[in-house]
């Protein structure tokens, strides 16, 4: 129902979004995962018709959104990365104002306002000024406002940045409920992989403006399924042991980490016996062995050679 084709945005010196193809089916929950500056915000702001793309198209139910933004606007709920609220007003006043802006009035307005405030769990504190809210509560009202006009699709730009675990949990559960119970389509942006892992049916991983991988969580981790990671804890680092491991044809890669060595080996290669044998030969004392199942973090590391967050 929502689709982008070769969507691209170039700022003066830099390609922020580089020919991104993405689609969303009705009722789906899709995650957009990427580190700071990956181009996530720029990408979704093009989908939301707030930024004009340099090239490429966005379609909503087959209709070109870039030519006519009003095709998508009424059905779109947008949660900006910033707290887009008037902080000197109360939460209630904020929500009500945006309700009026969406042409709600009278009983219907009051009813919707109460519904969304209740949804984000701030009914008892709605009369307080947004300024006096905690970061998490501000984020929740920020989401509430986007839900006022009962959108079909909600786009959330890092809605959990910099907040306490409780609020974060609350928001994640809420989004899950909206998606599963109300059938709302969700595009969720984050640089926390746990969030998209927990929330999303499909995931796009983005870096430097490009989508570098896409699929379900299992498909993505499947990229690494032909390999596994063995973490060896050693009493102390041993150069000779490390060299000996490198010589082994079945060991694909050896890297040092603070407590010992990390090996990447083909899956099910039954390499452990050989490793222990070598350790004995070179008198390296292994204190612990851990075979790692790949996570999205590893996928990202594998694809880019960098971690999602430092």
């Amino acid at each position, binding site marked *: 129902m929502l689709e982008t084709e070769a969507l691209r945005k170039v700022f003066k010196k830099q390609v922020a979004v580089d020919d991104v193809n993405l689609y969303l089916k009705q009722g789906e929950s899709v995650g957009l995962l990427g580190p700071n500056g990956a181009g996530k915000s720029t990408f979704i702001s093009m989908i939301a018709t707030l930024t004009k793309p340099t090239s490429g198209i966005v379609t909503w139910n087959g209709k070109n959104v870039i030519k006519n933004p009003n095709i998508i*606007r009424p059905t*779109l709920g947008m949660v*900006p990365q*910033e*707290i887009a609220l008037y902080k000197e*007003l109360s939460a209630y006043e904020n929500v009500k104002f*945006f309700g009026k*802006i969406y042409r709600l009035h009278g009983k219907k307005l009051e009813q919707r306002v109460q519904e969304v405030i209740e949804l984000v769990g701030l009914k008892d504190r709605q009369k307080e000024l947004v300024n006096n809210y905690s970061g998490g509560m501000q984020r929740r009202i920020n989401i509430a406002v986007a839900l006022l006009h009962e959108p079909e699709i909600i786009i959330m730009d890092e809605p959990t940045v910099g907040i306490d675990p409780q609020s974060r949990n609350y928001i994640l559960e809420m989004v899950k409920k909206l998606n599963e119970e109300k059938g709302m389509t969700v595009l969720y942006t984050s640089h926390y992989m746990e969030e998209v892992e927990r929330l999303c049916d499909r995931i796009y991983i983005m870096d430097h403006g490009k989508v570098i991988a896409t699929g379900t969580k299992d498909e993505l981790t499947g990229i690494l399924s032909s390999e596994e990671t063995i973490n060896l804890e050693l009493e102390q680092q041993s150069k000779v042991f490390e060299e000996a491991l490198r010589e082994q044809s079945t060991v694909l890669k050896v890297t040092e980490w603070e407590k010992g060595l990390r090996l990447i080996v083909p899956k099910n290669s039954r390499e452990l016996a050989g490793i222990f044998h070598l350790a004995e030969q070179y008198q390296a004392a292994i204190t612990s062995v851990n075979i790692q199942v790949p996570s999205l973090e590893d996928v990202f590391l594998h694809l880019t050679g960098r971690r999602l967050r430092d």
Partner: protein
Amino acid sequence: MINIFTLQWQRLRRKPFMVLAMIAMTVVFIIFIGGATNQSEVSIPTSFSDEFPAEDKAALIEELNELEGFNFIETTYHKARENIALGIASFGVRLSEEDYRFIIGTENPNQAIVEQYISSIYWENLRIDQAVEQSGDEQTRQSIETSLERPLIEVDSQIGESEGDVFIFNNQLQALFGMTLFFAIYTIVFSLGEVAEEKQRGSWDRLVLSPVRKWQVYLGYLSYAFVIGLVQIFAVFAMFQFFFGFDIGGKWLEVLLICVVYTFAIVSLGMLIIGLVNRSSQLNAIVPIIAVSMAMLGGAYWPIEIVSNKVVLAFSQVIPVTHAMEALKSITIYGENLTDITQPLSILLLMGVLCMGIGINLMERR
């Protein structure tokens, strides 16, 4: 549009500090500038040449002292020089029967005012003297003098002319108008600055995505800035008229019209400024610079009439403050009518339309 307009008032109620501070500053500055000089008049040591008839001295001094804000004090030439040299007075005058001379210590804007006034008196006396000489009759002098005091229609127009040449300086109203117009710039432009802030905060995006049209959003903000500016100006005017005993005169409708047009011009100018800078931090830096230079060049701090520099005068023509000050003073101090101020008003309107057009265009370009 109404929603956005009322939202701003709702926000103002919670955060009235900026507007109240601007009004308070206006009041303080007016009292300081307008009040201070009015209590202590400018003293001018006045000496006479030796051949000046002693019996006429008192009459001339009295005539001179009709000039508001100045006190002519009779003294000797020697004493006058001494006072000026010591800096007690910045200038003095030495009067002869046919002409007068200035004794100048330091340059002083008041000098031009005094000069014009004295010269008008001398011209008047000269004309009477000539008339007397021609008829050779002392009675003619008396009849001319009485008719000047209770003038006939023809004579009246002559007096009107000679008085029109004199630049009347009303320090109270100068300070009132100048400071009010000056501080209103801050309130208006900073109120509009909310648009820039809104864009930074992202709530602008919400408005863009909503069914509200963009021009309605702009109109909401513009009308708010307009009303708050006008309210501030009028609140100060009313306060000084009714509680501080300033005399703006009865032409409130004309004054209102001038303020409406001026506020419109400043709102538009604000739009232009916001179109040029996009961050509110930049706005905070640039607004004082613009407001202060406009006030200086536009005669809000001191009367533009005392400026003689051609470049400055030319510059002042493109500044809204100049024309608003001119119009306000015409109506209140010089007692002119609406028809006399159509020129400054149309210039202000033109400026407003131009700035608004360019400003909105610049904003939408981004």
